[in-house]
């Protein structure tokens, strides 16, 4: 898709409109899962599509826009995480609802600490590792499906997952108080 220059009053350029309709949910969901914040997820969604509006879809991404946009969402979400110390916005309902009413302040503190450790560990993964992690553990894709998405073999994904698990375990241990 060339950089969008012409725009109708009530719609985005056709190609961008199609990408937006088809993939905005994927981008937002991914960003939300990584950042844990509606505001940050919206910022990521806006940024991904502003860049598409200005630069267009890279030629090598045209055959698999979903893959490109998923990676873009992971990259920008990682930027968000790395650029902030874990904020706790009062109006971030999703953050506040995690520990609620399960066992008082102790559990709440433990959940918060666990969440912070996981976030910190994620910031130290590569975008590709985080992408695979999300697809496998969060989205529930099989190694074959991930291999298909990323254009590689199943065995490569299996080995990569093994390494990601080991790395994540190490990072989570490091972060333990």
């Amino acid at each position, binding site marked *: 898709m060339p950089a*969008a220059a012409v725009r109708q009053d009530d719609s985005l350029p056709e190609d961008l409109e199609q990408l937006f309709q088809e993939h905005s949910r994927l981008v*937002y969901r991914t960003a939300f899962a990584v950042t844990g914040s509606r505001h940050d997820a919206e910022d990521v969604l806006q*940024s991904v599509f502003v860049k598409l509006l200005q630069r267009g879809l890279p030629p090598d991404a045209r055959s698999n826009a979903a893959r490109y946009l998923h990676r873009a969402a992971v990259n920008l979400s990682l930027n968000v995480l790395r650029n902030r110390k874990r904020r706790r916005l009062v109006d971030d309902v999703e953050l506040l609802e*995690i520990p609620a009413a399960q066992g008082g302040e102790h559990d709440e503190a433990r959940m918060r600490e666990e969440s912070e450790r*996981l*976030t910190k560990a994620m910031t130290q993964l590569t975008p590709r590792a985080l992408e695979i992690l999300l697809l496998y553990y969060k989205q529930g894709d099989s190694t074959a499906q991930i291999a298909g998405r990323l254009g590689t073999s199943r065995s490569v994904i299996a080995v990569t997952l093994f390494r990601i698990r080991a790395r994540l375990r190490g990072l989570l241990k490091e972060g333990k108080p």
Partner: protein
Amino acid sequence: VNSTDHDLKDLIDRHLKWPSDLAFTAARDRVRKQLLETPAHLQTARVADAPSSIPMWRMAAAVAVVVIVVIGTAIFWPRGVQAYAAGDDGLQVTLADDSSVEMRAHAEMTVGRAADGIQIRLADRRHHRLRVQAARRAPVRADQGHDGVGRWNGISGKRR
């Protein structure tokens, strides 16, 4: 799927959430509205691209290495031996390769190594006050000073 896998999946499920449909729809509509209302060239991405894939510590280490090399070179680089004919009688100097240099009074030169032998650099910027006799034909070369006119004559030196 082993227990580690389960633990990791549980951890991720506990802390990485999907958004509600309501949250997504609201965000999508706001972003689309902004994309529509503002000219493309005036829009700014709220999240910047990653600055660089090179970690800061690596950049800092590379800069430190360059600084160390530059300073070390400046300190230890052989700059040659300086000779100055202080008296009124001039001076004749015999170099390590048996070349000889005849210096007039108050002439100054620096003798250093060059890739092809010995290099003599004139410090005298006004007059040609050196005569050089090479022990061998090729390797001795006389260079001029910064703005002086150095000359390599090959004339036999004699003690003044």
